[in-house]
């Protein structure tokens, strides 16, 4: 027995037994993005294997390749020793690889039993509700997942829906269960139940791939962890011996290029002594009654760039909406200067000098089917020169659109052209310039560089520096730590609707930010 084999035997991996899943040199590119580059991964029977990385690190792409949703550009998929290629998720599940996606793919109007049997070759040809429900109960019992077969899916809690999804995959005799951020939608108690079920599942000789960016749960549940960064594999390690700090460092990396834009030019306005925009213990509740923002306090000062870090979906959108009046707080107060704007309308925020580059510019920042002129004047249509005593003046509107397009260096051949015909970068620059015109106090910029190329990103960043030097406060929400480190004076880190802490960029350590992104609370000047 060789030394390597002996080492493996110690881990409970039998010599000679091939891993359940072996990926070798997998690469996948999309236009403009190299989502996976030469990634190796092995998943062994009996283990829970965590796949850790920031948004966009390539975790989901890799698993979508493994389950046949995407085809790899290069590389091999070897299942239990045999090279395979999957043209569809159906072929993958036939080979024992099943995935539960972050957004459930259940038919809401169907019962649990119907969902379990949907699109399954083993579904009996003569079906009745009673038969399906009996089969479902039996499956649930054998696999140790409690579900209510007769309940309609839309009556179920998210935790129960997830169990149905898992049961659906396991019923098809999956040996490898892939879970994409499974705890994002669960309460802590539900998460513990899930972990218990997963441990039982792997104890029967199966394997789980657990996609996550939460450090604490990776440490709690996984046997080994593979870290991806920027589409490449960083390492695979035994979880035992890892700490949150070491994982955070691996996940965030040290390769951040510092191109410091934090220095002020001569003559720039300093940071204001008092906040211009302030959230005081603000709680916001979403449509489902969950706390989208939980007791958040935040000061924005004039002449500073305040970065908001965090994995996307941890409350950044409600934060930007609360700061611009689009969401009214359920508890707490919003202040502009000394005035209470907690019950004000979005128009009042705009009139007071709060600009907003929304994260989904096509969905809310623009009316894509209307002309560039109509879109350019969205913030100033009601006041002279565009409007005179209730009349809208297309000529004046076009003149203003020209000014904004020139400031944004966007060449517009025809201002009557629908805004959707512009490239994403040009749309974003127009929106940014339009908002900068009204942002006399604060600009809220949500993911302003998303989908832009390097040149456009650079332009965007210089806009923010320009505003900051003019004494305007900028709130920069981003998932690019590099961007935040280069620009922000302070960085607040969000996790599950809360602010984990606010740090001064000058003295901040990346590891600390990584830890806070994973749910640890710390930092000076925090709430």
């Amino acid at each position: 027995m060789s030394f390597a084999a002996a080492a493996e035997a110690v881990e409970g991996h039998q010599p000679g037994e091939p891993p359940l899943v072996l990926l070798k040199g997998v690469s996948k590119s999309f236009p403009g993005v190299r989502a996976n580059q030469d990634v190796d991964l092995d998943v062994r029977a009996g283990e829970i294997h965590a796949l850790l990385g920031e948004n966009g690190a390539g975790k989901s792409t890799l698993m979508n390749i493994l389950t046949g949703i995407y085809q790899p550009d290069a590389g091999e998929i070897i299942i239990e020793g045999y090279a395979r290629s999957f043209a569809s998720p159906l072929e993958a599940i036939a080979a024992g690889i099943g995935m539960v996606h972050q957004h459930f793919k259940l038919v809401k109007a169907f019962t649990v039993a119907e969902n379990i049997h949907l699109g399954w070759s083993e579904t009996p040809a003569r079906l009745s509700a009673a038969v399906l429900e009996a089969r479902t109960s039996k499956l649930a019992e054998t696999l140790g997942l409690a579900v209510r077969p007769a309940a309609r899916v839309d009556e179920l809690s998210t935790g129960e829906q997830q169990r149905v999804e898992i049961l659906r995959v396991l019923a098809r005799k999956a040996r490898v269960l892939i879970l994409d951020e499974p705890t994002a939608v669960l309460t802590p108690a539900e998460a513990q139940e899930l972990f218990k079920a997963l441990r039982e599942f792997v104890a029967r000789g199966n394997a789980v791939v657990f996609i996550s960016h939460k450090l604490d749960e990776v440490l709690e549940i996984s046997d080994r962890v593979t870290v991806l960064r920027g589409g490449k594999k960083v390492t695979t390690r035994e979880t035992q011996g890892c700490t949150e700090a070491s994982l955070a460092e691996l996940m965030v990396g040290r390769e951040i290029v510092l191109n410091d834009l934090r220095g002020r030019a001569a003559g720039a306005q300093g940071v204001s002594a008092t906040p211009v925009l302030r959230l005081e213990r603000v709680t916001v509740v979403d449509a489902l009654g969950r706390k989208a923002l939980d007791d958040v306090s935040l000061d924005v000062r004039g002449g500073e760039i305040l970065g908001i870090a965090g994995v996307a979906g941890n409350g950044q959108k409600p934060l930007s909406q609360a700061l611009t009046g689009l969401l009214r707080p359920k508890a707490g107060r919003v202040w502009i200067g000394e005035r209470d704007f907690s019950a004000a309308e979005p128009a009042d925020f705009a009139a007071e000098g709060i600009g907003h580059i929304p994260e989904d510019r096509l969905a809310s920042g623009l009316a894509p089917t209307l002309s560039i002129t109509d879109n350019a004047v969205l913030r100033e249509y009601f006041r002279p020169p565009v409007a005179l005593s209730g009349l809208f003046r297309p000529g004046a509107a076009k003149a203003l659109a020209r000014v904004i397009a020139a400031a944004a260096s966007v060449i517009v051949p025809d201002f009557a052209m629908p805004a959707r015909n512009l490239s994403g970068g040009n749309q974003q620059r127009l929106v940014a310039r339009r908002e900068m015109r009204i942002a006399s106090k604060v600009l809220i910029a949500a993911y302003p560089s998303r989908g832009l190329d390097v040149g456009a990103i650079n332009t965007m960043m210089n806009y923010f520096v320009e505003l900051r030097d003019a004494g305007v406060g900028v709130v920069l929400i981003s998932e690019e730590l590099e961007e935040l480190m280069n620009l922000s004076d302070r960085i607040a880190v969000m996790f599950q609707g809360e602010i984990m802490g606010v740090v001064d960029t000058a003295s901040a350590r990346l590891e600390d930010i990584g830890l806070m992104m994973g749910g640890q609370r710390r930092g000076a000047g925090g709430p």
Partner: protein
Amino acid sequence: MAARLQRYPTAPPGVALAARAAAIVLALLTASALLALSGLNPIALGQQVIKSTFGSRFGLEDVGLLVTPLIFTGLSVAVALSIGAWNIGAEGQFYAGAFATAGVGLYLHAPAPLMLPLMFAAGALGGAVWILVPTLARAYVSVSELITTLLLNFVALLLVYWVATGPWLDPGGHALGTTARIKYEVPSFWGDVHWGFPIAIGLTIVVALALRYTVWGYEVRISGANPNAAIYAGMPSRARLIVVMLMSGAIAGLSGFFEVAGTVHRLQGGISNNFGYLGIMVAVLARGSSLGVLAGAALMAVILNSGIILQTKGLNVSTVLAITGLILFYTAIGDELAHYRLIWPKRAEA
């Protein structure tokens, strides 16, 4: 180097127009083929239709009478569409407007010069009241106006049938299933063509100008194109939605007013001639432009008038409806196809 079809987000206007023309020609060709199959001579019929429609003053007057309600109902649907609402209930609002007009005309006794303005107001109000509940349901609890406006059509239709055959039945008993003749009439200015025709055109132009040249119109257009952008920009988009939908109902109600007070002079079941539903077609043909409503209504009026002529030649009324259906069908296909262009890809670089 095979050519392939590529879909573009916008259709060039020239191509879109050509696709429209081709759709109408194809619909007529299909209809001709069907007529030929059933043993009729489509060319002779076509000549007959053109001669009777455009070759005589009576034909043109008939078209003028048909186009008026179509402009109103088409404008009604188009106005609602400008803020993103589908008013399928112009038919019901037409009936409600006609009902209110007849009620005032028959039973209110005001000084004669006031009667027409009162009936006009009643017609508009009737239409607006008919769309009120769907409007509030959409504005406050996001209930689809498609269903609510559609269902209220049947209520209005039955209401008019009932009053015309029951409580409001002509006591003179000259005609079956209609009210007595209403003595206040919208004056005619060219044969039978009454002032509803120029008023319809004028109203369409006013609406088009309001949408283009007022702050209110800008807010309506933004709210219609992207409700989220309207909220983001702090526009009172709910108030705009309510007003625009009520306007839409009122305009359809006016269609009923002019039909009762200008053309039929009585209230009777079936008075709408499906003008409300045809208004949907007019608005679709107009591609969301208020002025396009005028062209769409004119086309539809010519087709309806042709239908009346064809009926005298022994053709079924369903045939005519089938032709209008074919035009809409081909237009929808043509509009979609106008987005495609043939692409010859360059040889891929190694």
